[in-house]
């Protein structure tokens, strides 16, 4: 039986067998793509090392969850669902596209395993998938053009709008789907017209629509459409492939790798240079990231992988209060810079310029509070905190540190606290603990099972000393045998490290480690999440570290601590998740359980802005000294969120949050109507004594 239409592999144009063209298109396409990829890989080979060829089971799990299951996408519901449709559509259609390309030179080709029943099932599945992707692409284009979600905006200082690229790609996707469907539909229509058994097109798919549309067409027209659709599909497919590495759609290729190699831990900071031990840091000629090649290869892969979705910046507190930082553009500016340094055609630029002063500004890099909201959100596993820290290390090494930070750094070096207060005054707060609770001092040679690590702000700040006193009273009430290091305690150095002053951090760490080891305790307890995170993630070889909320919940459960009823529900409380307790250490439930242990307390959630979507109060440690350019304080935004949740009292579990939120209440003019309290203070008030 004569086929209803001449197939692409058997066709000829002007006497030339079309097979030649259909072999040539993939050959050129793959050749160009290989060349582009070789250029794109070049900077990665010159980059700083990054040890990511480790922990394969966890990495595979990350790929299955975050890449394949698109875990983070529904956090932005509409865009997320549309992306999931497109993603699975692409995965499904990949086999069909491969088959189509080969059909150009192997007549009747079908992929191994795609014959028989599975072939029929797949054929229907890919038709529905293609139709769903087409529908999604149309909705996405309308959304881009008509509704213009704010997070896609490109502020003038960051360059041109990215909409044309997005629309071009959506156009390419639609072209692929329409041409693929027309290729099928024209054949089916011709088969039907010739009275041959026609291939079945599932109802309501693109192909099905086109077949009905083409029902009356002549065989010649159908033949023309059949071959034209094939050729357009072939050309578009390879154009699209080569276009991907030009911009934000590179993620179609890189995402699986980027997720595989993504950061698996939270709260930690990368070493100055992978493979260089902390004791050998002095031997390094340069610290941190100064030029593009100082980034690690994974950080470069991050730049390639950014899909420009704007979720990071949408959740970034610095961006929200109009500090000069938008994480999305940290990636996009670096990618643009990379494409300039390593152009597709022409020579690689010999000398890489300093990044600060060319693509990034000093204030931009100091604006980050390292809260981690961006990393929590990124559907592609792009990281920012380590880049910020590395860029800061580079600035510190070059002496580029704002005057507002130089004073506290110098004081930390000399006195072990950012205010330059006397070491012996570190224990002044103990005088206010009150009777019936004695705080032991390891510096005086006393012994205890537990070390309460107070850290600088809680030791020295008048207001925060009340938190230290409350913490001590809780420990006493819970029957914990504890002591403090006193003048031997130095600042944990948590922000010193995150502000890029690695050597000062190392010094503080050594001093604290020595003092802690000398105290010979079984565990460490702290009420400061920054100290908690430092001791847990930045230090090593210490006894186990617990946050006070863990001690409270434990003591309540075991009956050692009994809490009295609250204020009969006259006030509504809300809990603010500190970044370094929540996002960086996943301690979301313990503080809530501690609060809920107070009988009759009424607690509301800042829905949408709590737990891993908590909004940073403004930053801790050295960030208290930094004077950022901003339109309003992060704390004020946060306090308004609490107000909207119907709260009268914001409970936090971090001294820096308390400073920022108490200030913000005043700035927002809510004094008297809203108050802030530390978790320890709240529990202390309700201890049954």
């Amino acid at each position, binding site marked *: 039986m004569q086929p209803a239409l001449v197939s692409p592999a058997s066709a000829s144009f002007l006497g030339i067998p079309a097979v030649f063209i259909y072999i040539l298109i993939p050959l050129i396409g793959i050749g160009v793509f290989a060349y582009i990829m070789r250029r794109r890989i070049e900077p990665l080979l010159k980059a700083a090392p990054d040890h990511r060829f480790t922990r394969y089971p966890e990495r595979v799990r990350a790929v299955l969850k975050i890449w394949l299951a698109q875990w983070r996408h529904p956090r932005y519901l509409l865009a997320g669902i549309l992306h999931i449709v497109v993603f699975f559509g692409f995965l499904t259609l990949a086999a069909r596209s491969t088959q189509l390309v080969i059909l150009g030179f192997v007549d009747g080709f079908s992929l191994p395993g795609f014959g028989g029943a599975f072939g029929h099932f797949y054929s229907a599945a890919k038709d529905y998938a293609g139709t769903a992707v087409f529908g999604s692409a149309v909705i996405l284009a309308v959304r881009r053009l008509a509704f213009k979600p704010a997070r896609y905006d490109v502020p003038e200082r960051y360059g041109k709008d990215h909409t044309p690229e997005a629309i071009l790609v959506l156009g390419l996707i639609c072209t692929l789907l329409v041409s693929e469907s027309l290729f099928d539909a024209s054949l089916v229509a011709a088969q039907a017209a010739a009275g041959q058994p026609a291939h079945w097109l599932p109802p309501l798919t693109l192909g099905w629509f086109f077949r009905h549309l083409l029902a009356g067409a002549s065989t010649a027209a159908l033949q023309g459409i059949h071959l034209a659709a094939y050729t357009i599909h072939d050309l578009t497919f390879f154009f699209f492939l080569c276009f991907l590495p030009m911009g934000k759609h590179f993620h179609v290729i890189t995402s699986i790798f980027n997720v595989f190699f993504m950061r698996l831990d939270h709260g930690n900071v990368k070493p100055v240079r992978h493979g260089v031990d902390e004791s050998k840091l002095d031997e390094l000629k340069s610290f941190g990231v100064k030029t593009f090649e100082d980034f690690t290869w994974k950080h470069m892969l991050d730049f390639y992988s950014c899909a420009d979705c704007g979720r990071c910046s949408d959740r970034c507190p610095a961006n929200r209060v109009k500090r000069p930082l938008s994480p999305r553009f940290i990636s996009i500016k670096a990618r643009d810079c990379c494409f300039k340094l390593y152009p597709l055609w022409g020579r690689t630029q010999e000398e890489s310029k300093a990044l600060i002063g060319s693509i990034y500004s000093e204030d931009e890099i100091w604006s980050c509070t390292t809260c981690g909201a961006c990393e929590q959100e990124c559907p592609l596993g792009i990281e920012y905190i380590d880049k910020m820290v590395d860029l800061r290390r580079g600035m510190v090494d070059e*002496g580029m540190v*704002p005057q507002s930070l130089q004073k506290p750094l110098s004081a930390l070096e000399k006195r072990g606290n950012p205010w*330059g207060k006397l070491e012996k005054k570190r224990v002044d707060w103990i005088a206010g603990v009150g009777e019936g609770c004695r705080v032991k001092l390891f510096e005086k040679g006393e012994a205890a099972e537990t070390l309460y690590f107070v850290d600088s702000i809680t030791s020295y700040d008048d207001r925060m000393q009340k938190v230290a006193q409350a913490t001590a009273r809780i420990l006493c009430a819970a029957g914990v045998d504890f002591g403090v290091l006193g003048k031997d305690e130095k600042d944990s150095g948590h922000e010193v490290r995150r502000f890029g002053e690695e050597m000062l951090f190392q010094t503080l760490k050594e001093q604290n480690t020595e003092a802690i080891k000398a105290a010979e305790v079984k565990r460490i307890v702290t009420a400061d999440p920054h100290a908690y995170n430092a001791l847990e993630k930045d230090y090593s070889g210490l006894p186990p570290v617990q946050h006070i909320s863990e001690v409270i919940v434990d003591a309540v459960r075991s009956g050692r601590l009994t809490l009295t009823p609250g204020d009969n529900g006259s006030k509504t409380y809300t809990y603010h998740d500190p970044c370094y307790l929540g996002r960086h250490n996943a301690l979301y439930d313990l503080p809530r359980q501690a609060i809920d242990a107070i009988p009759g307390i009424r607690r509301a959630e800042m829905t949408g802005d709590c737990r891993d979507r908590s909004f940073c109060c403004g930053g801790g440690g050295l960030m208290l000294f930094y004077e950022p350019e901003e339109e309003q304080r992060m704390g004020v935004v946060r306090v308004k969120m609490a107000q909207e949740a119907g709260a009268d009292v914001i409970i936090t579990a971090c001294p820096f949050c308390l400073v920022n939120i108490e200030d913000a209440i005043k700035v927002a003019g809510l004094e008297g109507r809203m108050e802030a309290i530390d978790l320890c203070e709240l529990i202390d008030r309700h201890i049954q004594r």
Partner: protein
Amino acid sequence: MEILVCVKRVPDSAENEIEVKGDGSDIKRDDLVYSVNEWDNYAVEEAIQIVDRSGGSVTVVTIGSEDSEEVVRREMAMGANNGLMLVDPAFEGSDGRGIAAILKAAVQKGTYDLVLCGAQADDGAAQVGGMLAALLDWPYASLVNKIEVQDGKKIKIGREIEGGNQEINEIELPCVLSIQTGINEPRYVGIRGIRKVASVEIPVLNAAALGVDAAAVGKAGARVKRLDYFVPQAGAGAEMLQGSTDEIAAKLIDLLKAKGGLK
């Protein structure tokens, strides 16, 4: 341009709680931490920037004990090319003129086009720069907050005048300038920077090596002698407002309104 910057190691008032000894001879020094005098740090930064723009070298000099080495190293970590320490027991207790005389000898040991001092020291009297210029018979400008190098013979300098006014002068080289804070933004020096210059040799000169008459400087040669040192009693003219921040603010507003300061 060859630049000499005079620096001093002082107890940092921001990182110490300064207490005066009972006998009024000095402050209590047991629990002090020291740093480079803030004004001097600006002077070093300015010198480094001048050399970055127009070539030459920066030498940092200090008078004091072996302890002063830390501040010289810190300034060398900033980018000063050379250090110089003037150490002699005979220098102890010098008055301003004595310090200027010792520095004069150091200046004459080298070939400097420009000598920079801080406008004053945390624990000083803002006199050394002027005296040094006079002893050298060089031109002098004080409270300089802007330096523009023109040619090898002259520079243009800006001076801060009371009330926020600015004056621009031309001054012949060699000269002495005392530097005001705010002239630049001094770069940060961390532990890493200091370790990098930890093994650089710093020459130490004593009175003999400098050719300074030991009797003319130090305690013996001082013609200004400190008689007493104390914290003045709070005057009766001051009214301390009491209460919470809000109450204090409210009282202050009332007072200002009452005296016509606020309309």
